[in-house]
């Protein structure tokens, strides 16, 4: 219903500091925890863009997508699995054919960004000029262009 939760696999993220991670991450406030069953579910499937943010994050792989009833013939599945630096995708066609793809998502571990490292732009004298922070390191040309 686009995303759905396998109730046998969902443990309501009992050990997660942020609570149920599908509820935490959903960009459209769709995933909620049923207080009686303690299972997550999608409360408004027609506002789900099948962005897979919850599917990618679920530690139990309890989240899946059943494609939109409007136009997706039944029986196929596209399911991600997290790898160290990206995702492995398992694709199952309606006719049973399968494909597997693995793609990198990042070259550096999350949390490793060092802010403003080596930036030289002067916060007082350059505040009112046209430079942006880090131009001297990252613009790639010596001088910020201005119209000829």
């Amino acid at each position: 219903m686009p995303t759905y939760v396998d109730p046998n696999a969902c443990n309501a993220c009992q050990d997660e500091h942020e609570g149920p991670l599908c509820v935490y991450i959903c960009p459209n406030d769709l995933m909620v925890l049923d207080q009686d069953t303690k299972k997550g579910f999608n409360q408004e499937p027609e506002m789900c863009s099948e962005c897979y943010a919850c599917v990618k994050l679920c530690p139990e792989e309890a989240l899946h997508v059943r494609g939109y009833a409007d136009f997706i013939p039944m029986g196929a599945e596209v399911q991600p699995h997290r790898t160290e630096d990206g995702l492995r995708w398992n694709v199952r066609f309606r006719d049973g054919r399968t494909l597997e793809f693995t793609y990198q998502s990042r070259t550096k571990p999350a949390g490793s960004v060092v802010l403003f490292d080596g930036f030289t732009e002067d916060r007082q004298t350059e505040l009112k000029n046209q430079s942006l922070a880090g131009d001297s390191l990252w613009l790639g040309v010596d001088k910020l262009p201005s119209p000829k």
Partner: protein
Amino acid sequence: MTLPTTETIDCDILIIGGGMSGCGAAFESKYWSGDLRVVMVEKAVIERSGATGEGLSAINCYMGQRYGWNTPEDYTNYVVNDMMGLAREDLVYDVGRHVDNSVHLLEEWGLPIWKKDNGEYQRIGRWQIPIHGESIKPITAEPARKAIGPENLFERVSVTHLLTDADDPQKIAGAVGFAVRENKFYVFRAKAVIITCGGASNVFRPRSVGEGMGRVWYSVFATGAAYGLMIPIGTEMTQMEHRFVPTRFKDGYGPVGMWFQYFHAQVLNSKGEDYTVTRADELKKYEPYGSAIPTPTPLRNHQMFMDIKEGLGPMYMRTDIAMQKLAEGDPAKMDKVRDEAWEDFLDMTISQALTWASQNIAPEDTPTEVVLAEPYIMGSHSGEAGAWVSGPEDIATGDYFWGYNRMTTIRGLFAAGDGVGAAPHKFSSGSFTEGRIAAKAAVGYVSDNPSAPSVSDANVRDIQETIWAPLETFEKHKGASSAEEINPNFMTPKQGLVRLQKIMDEYGAGASTWYTTNEPTLLRGIELIEMFREDLTHLAARNRHELMRCWELVHRTWVGEAHLRHLLYRKETRWPGYYYRSDYPDLDDANWRVFVNSKFDAAKNSWDLQTKPYRNIITSI
């Protein structure tokens, strides 16, 4: 009315919206601002919020100045042509000259960019570079979160209204919103505010109206807040008649750029004809833009649309021909091409991969339908709706400059991304960059204008009662009907959304009317949307989730009404393939190569529309 508690936040700069432009604004403002307090508010969680939350398979705005690929002048020429002659050259140039800095930083933060053997970036088009971009948003969010500090990031807070200064309604003072998951109001008092929230999907009735209403091309979370916040306080807007109608893979709305530019695939009609060949003469009606290279996006739409209207569909992207040609019969080459083809969707539009799998489409064997989608009103991608803003001091001339780059006509109110009008083709990297540009200017503004804003508590209380009213309406009237959703006293946000979409689709040149309208049709649409705006005071919400939907609908309605009024005002057809005025079917450069601006006057409940002159600052087009 019993209202929940209020938390009041005093800050120097408030950033509303944590998408690409908001993250850029957070990062840049903290570099320049030192001790100033910078606060960002976001209705979701910034790691996956906004239009790039699902990921991206390409960065579509990169100059490659260090490689000598393009100059900002080249980019400005391209954008002005693609917009059929209407873009603010100062704003476009400004993004172009800065954007490489942002792209290089994204790579430094961990974004994988495809490389050639010599270490240069791969290219798939003149401005486009392919990326392994599934995580572009978490990669962008990390420096933003670190820059302002997690204590200054307010997530799951939906901002509904801007506050103007109690002593001066032409000056910004902050914003009001509510916590989506707690019983709590937030009042942000700020010296400067940067609007970095989204453009508008789902204003027009989408082609999929069941569950698939969420699978619109532009993010379903993009509710037009950028416009819905700015219009009611009288901010001058520009080009709100403009819209983008994307040609995309049918239903899943997967991207086509890689297919055209990298795989060199063709779209052919059911007779095997290529509309860019059979309809080549049509371009001559739209000179000088018709002979621009590449052909402007609306004109390519227009050519395909002529085939569709003549009943020559379905239109198929011949993925099969393109992939077989690239593989040259070599299974190893085919494995690589197949890997790239699926990644294009899995990195950013996973539903399209599911569409392939569910319809047993292996793209190397079977072509895929493409379609013209429903219209979207936006300012960051190929649309140019948004606020009329000041340009940069060293480029903007005459009445294009009023003190601070990207400041709107409300003092201290800045915009970036979808919020800035007449500055399209920014995409992810350009929106991030424009957020940075606006933020630096906002720091400069606050350093020149350090006094705290004056906020009227009574005004805040009035706004809070307005925000909370749908919850009260439901409780007050629910007893009038045995069915929760059928009640003569109120409408639900879902019912309202369908009504708005029907008006826009049928009167405002939506997909079901072949993107065509005329003056009498628009006047009728405006009558109906005026009644609809009155009825918004009868919205009902059963919980805070629905309350958020109510306010999203209010924002979308402001967008819809502004769009209809601008469509009526511009008496020409400048962007065939996006919309057609049947009463003014031709491009009219002599009279209409001007911007159309509007202001809403809340006291009079009226709109004032006027034109602003076009200035050739960079190009001679």
